[in-house]
């Protein structure tokens, strides 16, 4: 069943359109930076972008930082929100269940599909923008955000770690979208529900009045990946982020499983 899901993911034009858009946006930004030579001042603008003009090594990480606040979550919400509700609206869900495919296996293969999409998206964005960064800005040894020197090899390793972390950061949102996807027959409604949760989390993370719950918001530690480029690496936020995403994932995946296993399929 997992192979079937992956085949559908890879053969679906939407997957590649989404990934192309995700990878293309940072390239556009990079071209603007290169042609104008105007980079955001350090500490302002999207994370790491102030550094890329000097060194293309940071560009893949900066590219991920660019799509992390909005575009990547939207893509994940759309793909994961479509997982079950899309089958319902296409009329294929009833045939899968009557095939018979066990409901638990279907939910499992859907989450694997969503994870593969996230992985595919961040890896392609990173690779495309590594090439773009190298072409536009060149590759030099890196100075860490803390001011010490990093070898190119070390910089690449940290870029890989940040790719993994950003991918992992999407787990909570994917779980929420998948849960919503079992509760409705409309893929749009499921994606919007997940996006509503995402925006709520972002808003609450900005206001001081919500201070007590901030550490538990799914988006709170997203930008902690920047800490991977400090020397030494600040692990605290990253560890918490990894753990928090795992908890969200497990809770909502459990919810999706329970919800789907007791659902009357009327689509």
């Amino acid at each position, binding site marked *: *069943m997992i*192979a*079937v899901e992956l*085949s*559908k993911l890879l*053969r*679906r*034009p*939407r997957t590649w359109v989404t990934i192309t858009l995700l990878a293309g946006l940072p390239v556009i930004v990079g071209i603007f930076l290169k042609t104008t030579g105007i980079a955001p001042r350090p500490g302002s603008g999207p994370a790491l972008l102030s550094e890329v003009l000097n060194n293309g090594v940071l560009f893949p990480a900066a590219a991920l930082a660019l799509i992390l606040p909005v575009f990547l979550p939207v893509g994940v919400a759309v793909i994961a929100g479509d997982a079950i509700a899309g089958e319902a609206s*296409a*009329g*294929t*869900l*009833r*045939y*899968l*269940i*009557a*095939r*018979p*495919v*066990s409901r638990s296996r279907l939910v499992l293969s859907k989450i694997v599909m969503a994870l593969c999409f996230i992985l595919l998206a961040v890896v392609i964005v990173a690779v495309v923008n590594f090439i773009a960064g190298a072409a536009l800005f060149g590759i030099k040894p890196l100075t860490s955000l803390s001011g010490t020197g990093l070898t190119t090899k070390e910089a690449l390793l940290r870029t890989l770690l940040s790719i993994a972390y950003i991918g992992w950061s999407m787990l909570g949102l994917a779980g929420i979208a998948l849960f919503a996807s079992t509760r409705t027959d409309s893929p749009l409604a499921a994606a919007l529900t997940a996006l509503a949760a995402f925006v709520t989390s972002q808003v609450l993370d900005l206001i001081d009045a919500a201070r007590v719950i901030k550490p538990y918001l799914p988006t709170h530690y997203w930008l902690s990946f920047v800490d991977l480029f400090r020397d030494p690496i600040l692990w605290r936020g990253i560890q918490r982020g990894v753990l928090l995403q795992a908890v969200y994932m497990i809770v909502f995946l459990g919810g999706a499983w329970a919800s789907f296993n*007791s659902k*009357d*399929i*009327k689509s």
Partner: protein
Amino acid sequence: MTVVVRTEQLTKRFPGGLLAVDHVDLEVHEGDLFGFLGPNGAGKSTTIRMLLGLIFPTEGTVEVLGQAVPRHAQRALLDVGSLVEGPGFYPYLSGRRNLTLFDAAGAGGSRRTRDARIDAVLERVGLAEVGRRPIKAYSMGMRQRLGLAAALLRTPRLMILDEPTNGLDPQGIHELRSLFVELVRSGTTVVLSSHLLAEVEVICTRAAMMASGRLVAQDRVDALLAPTGTVLIESPDAVDAAATLRSRQLLVEWIDATHLRAHLDGYPSEDVNRLLVDAGVRVSELSRERRSLEDVFLDLTGGETADAARAVLPAPVVDGAPGGPWAGSYPAPSDGARDGSSVGSSETPSATAPPPPPSPPNEWPDPVPTPGGSR
């Protein structure tokens, strides 16, 4: 006789209180071409979805091919092909690719024989030429056929088809009927639901009727359609005919100036014919009156649901004109036009009915043994 589908006191009450299926006891035997009838909203689809493990019953039990559903649905449904309220496909993939993925989903589809099986079913439903086109380019009839191809892919022992002729043109319906008859002949049990009673009357061997969530009848179709003990007579000398029959103490009703209904009360219908001819009465047509499934249904449900039923059933028969959208594609009365009189069904008196249209070319070829099937 092996029972392939059995429900006992099957009940579904949806959240909100709607009682969609109300204590239904169904029994489908191996080899049946089973018609599952009733107006829209009678609970047929909900029942079928419970058979397929899609909807969970509130009460009662379901057994399909000897296994309890939904508990053992994974085993029960392996040998079941289904079509539920229209086919469903991934529009961005080709028909072939859809079948491949469908077969690969879940247990039971052998990868080794997959291509050959897909070729065979596409051939069988007449889509061999267009299998590689994306679904987006398929007409509604083609999608319906592809849905059937998917249902046939694993050579099922039991086919459960919900409104399989929806959206098909008369020729498509004709082809589908031939396919169903073929399937039953080759040993598959077919359950098909329909709101068109006349459609089922033509091909089914057994039928169940639902109205407002309850099962109102379940029997062999020929038993449901048993002769009513009346004959219809058309004669230019209808007055003499009536007098002749009344002289034998037969009760006669006038339908119009040339049509009579005679209540035989045990009097053999062939003797009615001789009686009239001997008395010098010219007879244009004489037929044993049979009830249609529609009449049976309306009798069983009474006035309560008759309006709802009429709204979706073929138009009632008026003055011997065949009613219903598919009346023109009924087979010609099999034992008609013997000795100047015809013994057809009451719905298609041959004197007034238009000649049946020429049989469309049969695009459903004879069943080919499907490689790799379970039988």
